[in-house]
């Protein structure tokens, strides 16, 4: 065990940054502010000031930490392999303990209870239709009043359905399920136990709550079948259960988790033909951070999608769009500035629509007027299921 100090960051991890600055251009908040405190190098330096040199946790420290989208775009860019995400999670956990009462924990508690989330979502949908909430300003998508019901078709693979996505974008799950089934697999659906992966709680530093959600999720997805995930943020956390929980069960669980595109790319020869319906549209693939930087599995999305449509890559090297789970709601100004950069890249690409494999990105970009679909929704529309 290495010694733990005031922020509870692993000393070895904290010592691993050599301040070279190569992370700076890959950090969305540094890109839009140009300020060191809003960069990974600056944040690590701030963590050191507090943990190693006893500087007080003040407003400027909180601003530095809370402005981080936790996109982890800095990690692949780092020559020294600094585990920034892990250091930020530790810091957020310590800050959450110090804040004691955090309203966010009530919000995230709802996510773990599917019935309550559905009830609240349905209410929200009604209120939206009565135009009682300023959805655009709050960054909310239009929530469906009635959701189609998903039915299991076998036990070859699990489809993880999650919380917000299931409540607000279930039609995406339906598309994903059809595409997976078309490759010849029967899809199992988890019960209410696997209601939330715990990602948002973890990023907010609410470790205990996150671990409780993880335990329930693991229990609900038993057996040895691959667990397919169509939300990049959820997939990233599910793949890290092993690291976070540290138990052999959690490690074994995480090994079963795959982004659905990874699984599909591996079954490429099983996928149905394009038929006559290959759409004459150009799709720009927006790589969600948690797919590209954390799972490092963004390539399969383009591989699968390019069988069915013309795919262009954005020229911004996977810079974050600013969604960041609850980030867009917590830091609306920074999130919007970050999104502006992404919109410029989308405009430069000349694409008709944007594909994103993460619900948070989809909502955030759609709020700026971009047509965004899940990659497999696009595939679902084009596949010749009879052919």
């Amino acid at each position: 065990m290495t010694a733990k100090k005031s922020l509870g960051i692993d000393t070895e991890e904290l010592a691993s940054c050599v301040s070279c600055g190569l992370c700076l251009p890959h950090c969305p908040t540094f890109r839009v502010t140009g300020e060191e405190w809003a960069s990974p190098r600056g944040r690590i330096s701030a963590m050191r000031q507090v943990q190693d040199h006893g500087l007080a946790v003040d407003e400027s420290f909180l601003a530095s930490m809370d402005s981080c989208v936790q996109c982890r775009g800095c990690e692949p860019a780092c020559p020294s392999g600094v585990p920034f995400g892990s250091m930020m999670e530790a810091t957020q956990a310590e800050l959450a303990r110090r804040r004691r009462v955090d309203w966010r924990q009530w919000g995230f508690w709802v996510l773990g209870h599917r019935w309550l989330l559905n009830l609240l979502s349905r209410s929200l949908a009604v209120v939206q239709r009565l135009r009682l909430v300023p959805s655009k300003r709050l960054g909310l998508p239009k929530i469906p009043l009635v959701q189609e019901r998903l039915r299991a078709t076998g036990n070859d693979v699990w489809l993880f359905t999650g919380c917000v996505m299931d409540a607000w974008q279930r039609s995406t799950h339906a598309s994903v399920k059809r595409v997976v089934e078309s490759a010849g697999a029967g899809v199992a659906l988890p019960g209410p136990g696997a209601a939330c992966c715990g990602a948002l709680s973890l990023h907010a530093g609410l470790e205990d709550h996150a671990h409780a959600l993880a335990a329930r999720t693991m229990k609900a997805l038993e057996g040895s079948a691959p667990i397919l995930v169509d939300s990049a943020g959820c997939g990233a956390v599910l793949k890290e259960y092993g690291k976070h929980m540290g138990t052999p069960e959690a490690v074994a669980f995480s090994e079963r988790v795959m982004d659905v595109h990874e699984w599909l790319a591996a079954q490429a020869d099983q996928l149905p033909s394009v038929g006559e319906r290959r759409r004459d549209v150009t799709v720009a693939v927006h790589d969600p951070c948690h797919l590209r930087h954390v799972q490092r599995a963004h390539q399969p999305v383009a591989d699968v999608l390019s069988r069915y449509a013309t795919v262009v890559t954005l020229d911004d090297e996977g810079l974050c769009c600013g969604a960041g789970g609850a980030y867009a709601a917590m830091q609306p100004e920074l999130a919007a500035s970050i999104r502006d950069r992404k919109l410029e890249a989308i405009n430069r690409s000349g694409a008709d629509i944007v594909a994103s494999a993460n619900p948070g990105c989809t909502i955030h970009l759609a709020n700026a007027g971009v047509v965004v679909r899940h990659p497999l929704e696009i595939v679902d529309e084009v596949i010749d299921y009879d052919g």
Partner: protein
Amino acid sequence: MKFRKADPLMRDLRRVLPSDRVRVAPLERSIMGRDASIFEGGRAGPVCFPISTEEVQGCVDAARRHGRAVVPRGAGTGLAGGAVPLEEPVVVVATKMNRLLSVDAEQRVAWVQPGMINLDLSRALAPFGLHFAPDPSSQQVCSLGGNVGTNAGGPHCLALGVTSAHVLAAEVVLMSGESVVLGDAGGWTPGLDLRGAYVGSEGMLGVTTAIAVRLTRNPPAVETLLLAFDSVDAAAQTVSAVIADGIVPAAIEMMDKNIIWAVENFVGAGFPTDAAAVVIVEVDGLPGGVAAEADRVAELAVERGGSVRRATDDEERALIWKGRKSAFGAIAQIKPNYYLHDTVVPRTRLAEVMNQVYEIVDEHDLQVMNVFHAGDGNLHPLLLYDGREPGIMDRVHAAGSAIIEASLAVGGVLSGEHGIGIEKRDFMPLMFSEADLDAQARLRRAFDPEEMANPGKVLPTGASCADVKALDNIPEGVWG
């Protein structure tokens, strides 16, 4: 010290900049206390983020009125400690001045703001078939203002020269608060080459607020060769032979065994892991000359026992360069810390000095990797260490000094592209006489008589009296 709102300096700075662009929180000042060098413990005073020349003038004026030094800062990727603030100066950060102001593709000139990132400029120029030639390994993050400050180099500066040859003019705020354009972006002006004196002055003559850069046409033909050798000697001799043969390639880069292994493990660029050294040679220009020179380079390598791989397409070329440019990234696999040196030796003495470097490192019981601009004779030995090992820094510094001395002994110089900063300030007397250093101090005083621009850098103690105060007060730990 604390900077309160009522502090007269703060009051003046806030007259110039909105309060969210003057930062004084202890944390924000402390994280501005270092750059990418190994020097820690610098301490910034108020940190200013101007967005215009007028605002920079205002910051400099305010600092002068209150007798405070000014330290200009770009992306903070300098390796010699040039941007490390001593004595709580006003730090003027260029990162919010990052726009491309104009491009004249016909005249091949662009005006840029100093905070623009080097690679962003070349990306913006791609549609014109032009680029900015200096390409430091940190080009994805380093700022053009910083490039001007250090007269930065990069692999492709062999044929085309370092930053100074690519800067036509610079708009500079002097410590008097005056803004002046040095050089001439479009025409020719009689007079001293003030622009030339300014480039590479490490922030000690003024604050850069705009730069006119010369743009280079993208070459119509490129050949990239990966040469592998059984001995470092053979590799170094091939480099010398290529130069002696009258070929000036666009780039000649060399990597030794340890770094080849680490790079292969990291990115899989297809480098031969059984080689003692590889040399990357790139020739570019018109197709006839490119083909002839590539053939000749291959011949010279084979004559010295080397094997030759020629990149067959852009993809293979990109992979070879990826291997070269990820070199520093690969080091973390071996040791957590590194100290990167930067001396230059005459190209005919390359093999000899490299052997000395290996001996020196052995004597101090350290590990070394060499990945460097061989065509210029610009050595970059990376001393690897674990900073937590007691007493290790003494050995690292001792080995570093010995490498510098060995380089100077064969007619080399202290720094090829990183600059002097704090790092090599006290080595300056090894290369320059008292009269030489006095002449440099005169240049500095002509621009900045009060010596308020980035004091404590480049010129060693005694070269200039006003610096002594800053030098005596270097906070503990600055020397890593």
